């Protein structure tokens, strides 16, 4: 039996914050009161009581979060082959760079002349992303992929409004990420689902049938969420353009194609990138991310305001964009995240970024090839950054994708993405990323194979998994039925 790195060991329990503490303690160092007290003059009607926060000492807070961290699993802990999420190594130096005092403490509303360092970073990152995608114009404002999609949809709407057109349907493949239809709907567009072909990609014929003058266009993810390249993308975008439509590209899977695919040549009009995926900024247990959008020339004017331009060697914020969809963020987006991506791009350079894509695709294909006799392969063709299996063969022994996922946890692996995309029942989507080495992949593969063998012989242990974690399988139904959102 091959075992992964997972073991049982000693960890620490820790109550909720307000189950600790005593009134009067504090972990905050109170600054000197070097001015007269004045707050007594406040109208009693406006004055509140301090909220019911627990009072803790410094060591209480330190132990609390130190212990909580022990119940978590990050990229630094181990392999995180979460498909569609590009959980690659997040370099520590990027954190340090983003924390550079003069960068981290910059106020967003100073005059441009006083913010040349920050503006230069934004300007250069705009141009890097343009070059990476092949597109013409970039807005760094969207705070995440989904907000990038929203910005794109709003730009499409503005474009048609300007052209005096009334379009409200939008084509979205069944494999699309949930944010796609949801972002489209936020703009009042009605998603029309495109069924992907039996080979996992879209048949241009289907698009041709659905595309009409009432249709805004299409949202495409390429490589798509099955890890496959939409090989007919040129035909598809041509069809859409022919009917006056526009093409939105979901570039969340850019990690497979840096320096390999030119999205403008593919016919994309606007696309977003997930910097917290491809450009290695940490995901922070949920965020923050950054979802810049890149557009072709004809849509440049619709991008969010402001953006950064350069004149006479100085950088400044351009607000004069009459066609712009407006502002998406109180300031300039998740600047600190942008800085980390900028730092990553500078560290890698063009050559290493391309190499990263090649190795990401190599790793995915290696896993695909190594597990294909053990797990049902949803689409039998070379993949890009991720490969999708399912539990089809394991169902026979009443072992599900969920059971295998939980079984991997006991072995010290974060499970792959499961039950997504929906077109593959019981999907198991594995994206190793380029930062996993062959030895670790080999161990993962061997463990997965053994797990599958175990599933055949005795599924019960897997149905019980995980056994090693602080909590076992959680009752999600109860959580949703009687929500307890605060303590």
């Amino acid at each position: 039996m091959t075992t992964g790195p997972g073991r049982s060991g000693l960890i620490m329990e820790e109550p909720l914050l307000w189950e600790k503490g005593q009134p009067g303690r504090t972990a905050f160092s109170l600054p000197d009161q070097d001015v007269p007290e004045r707050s007594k003059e406040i109208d009693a009607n406006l004055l509140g009581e301090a909220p019911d926060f627990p009072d803790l000492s410094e060591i209480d807070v330190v132990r609390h979060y130190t212990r909580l961290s022990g119940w978590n699993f990050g990229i630094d802990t181990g392999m995180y082959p979460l498909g569609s999420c590009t959980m690659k190594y997040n370099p520590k130096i990027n954190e340090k760079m983003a924390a550079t005092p003069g960068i981290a403490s910059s106020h967003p509303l100073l005059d441009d002349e006083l913010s040349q360092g920050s503006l230069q970073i934004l300007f250069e990152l705009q141009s890097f992303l343009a070059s990476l995608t092949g597109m013409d114009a970039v807005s760094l404002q969207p705070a995440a992929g989904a907000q990038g999609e929203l910005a794109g949809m709003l730009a499409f709407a503005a474009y048609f409004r300007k052209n005096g057109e009334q379009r409200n349907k939008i084509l979205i493949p069944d494999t699309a990420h949930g944010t796609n239809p949801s972002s489209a709907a936020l703009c009042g567009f009605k998603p029309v689902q495109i069924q992907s072909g039996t080979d996992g990609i879209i048949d241009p014929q289907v698009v041709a049938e659905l595309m009409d003058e009432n249709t805004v266009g299409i949202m495409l993810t390429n490589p798509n969420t099955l890890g496959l390249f939409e090989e007919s993308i040129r035909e598809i975008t041509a069809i859409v353009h022919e009917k006056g439509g526009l093409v939105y590209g979901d570039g969340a899977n850019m990690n497979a194609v840096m320096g390999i695919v030119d999205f403008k040549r593919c016919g994309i009009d606007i696309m977003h990138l997930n910097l917290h995926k491809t450009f290695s900024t940490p995901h922070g247990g949920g965020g923050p991310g950054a979802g810049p959008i890149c557009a072709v020339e004809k849509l440049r004017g619709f991008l969010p305001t402001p953006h950064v331009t350069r004149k006479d060697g100085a950088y400044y914020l351009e607000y004069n964009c009459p066609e712009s969809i407006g502002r998406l963020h109180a300031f300039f987006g998740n600047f600190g995240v942008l800085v980390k991506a900028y730092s990553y791009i500078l560290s890698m350079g063009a050559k290493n970024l391309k190499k990263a894509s090649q190795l990401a695709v190599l790793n995915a294909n290696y896993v695909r090839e190594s597990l294909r006799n053990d797990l049902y392969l949803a689409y039998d063709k070379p993949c890009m950054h991720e490969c999708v299996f399912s539990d089809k063969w394991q169902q026979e022994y009443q072992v599900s994708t969920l059971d295998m996922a939980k079984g991997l946890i006991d072995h010290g692996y974060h499970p792959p993405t499961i039950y997504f995309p929906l077109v593959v029942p019981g999907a198991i989507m594995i994206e190793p990323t380029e930062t996993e080495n062959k030895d670790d992949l080999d161990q993962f593969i061997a463990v997965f194979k053994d797990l599958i063998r175990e599933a055949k012989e005795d599924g019960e242990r897997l149905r019980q998994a995980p056994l090693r974690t602080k909590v076992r399988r959680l009752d999600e139904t109860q959580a949703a039925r009687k929500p307890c959102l605060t303590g």
Partner: protein
Amino acid sequence: MRYLPHTDTEIAEMLAVTGHDQLDDLFAHIPDDCRYRGEMSLAGPLSEWSLTDRFQELAAKNYSSSAKAVLIGAGSYSHHTPEIVSSLISRSEFLTAYTPYQPEMSQGTLQGIFEYQTLTARLLGMEVANASMYDGASALAEALLMALRIARKKNTVAISAAIHPHYREVVRTYLQAESFTLIELPVKEDGRTDLSSLQNIDDLAAVALQSPNFFGVIEDLEKAGQAIHSVAALFVTCFSEPFAYGLFRSPGDNGADIVCGEGQSFGMAQSFGGPGLGMFACKAKHQRTLPGRLVGETVDIEGSRGYVLTLSTREQHIRREKATSNICSNQGICALTAAAYMASLGATGLRSVARLNYDKAAYLRNGLIEAGGKLLFNSPTFNEFVLCFPDDFEVSRERLLKKGIVAGIELGRFYKEYKNAYLFCVTETTARVVLDTVIGEACK
């Protein structure tokens, strides 16, 4: 390259398994006319050391360092952050984890966010809070969309002109696509929102106020809430400076239905405006229409307490085009940071620091008034206030700038009617000697 572990031998071995001759062959199926031509034009690769030099140079081009005093808030505040907050939250188990889809290996994040939700709800006087939004501005936009969802048939929302101008811009962006009507309520002479027109607005789903508002003025939320509820609209409040609630009554206490705002003050670097933290809370009865992620308490199969992402049928990955919002990645680590910050403050610390903000701002305000400045609005404020000056203040401002002090921000860029009025902010981080310098230079 230190991030790419593959040796040439390994690449060859792996290609043998995948059945390719060389790396390029992995991309053989990509049509020629989709391909990237030539080399990408990027900078680098830089070693760790050259990278550090580069950032030192960039940082030197910013007017910002520990030696400078920037007396501007306007949505981004300079507060002290205990060293423990940064060092704890940067633990890699938190920082390098994904969204907690697998609760068994994410209890740290999940309990941490549950605590964040709870402390946020307590701060704002509300019953429930979500796991975070992108920032205060988009949180306000989503709050109005949520109000429109709750109000169903109604199509109009009104927002105060005293709300942060950028927040209002974002609201306009979010609401532009659908045929909603957005009305702006004017500002009265005292710097508070004029609600007298409410009775005349049809179809009103919600009214949004900010307090302290963009001018630093504390709105009379209690009266406002009564007026808004009396026209059967939802009462939405927002904020950009949560420290205010260490001293002033919470929005919930004043009857707000949805409360949202920016949490940057609670431990996040100003970092040119982001990442911040969209805080978002509401009454429990509305919880199923909340946007964003939610963490809930439950039990595992052995009955142990545990936490999970919950009510996900509201969300895009389940509900797709019918989701309550399109949020997927949020501001997770910022929420955790804010929770650690609130925990470090405690009730006692929050109160003390909030008081000190008030006291220091009052000191500058009074000093500048004595020196000849005039209050634009005569209402209570917290740590921000607006002043006008008899002479051209820009000259004093330039002089102060050379001394390393940014003395307020001129309001004309946001409101034509308030040209030559200056919005100042003073927090606990500004030493009295800086304030005295400003007072001394103000009306020279």
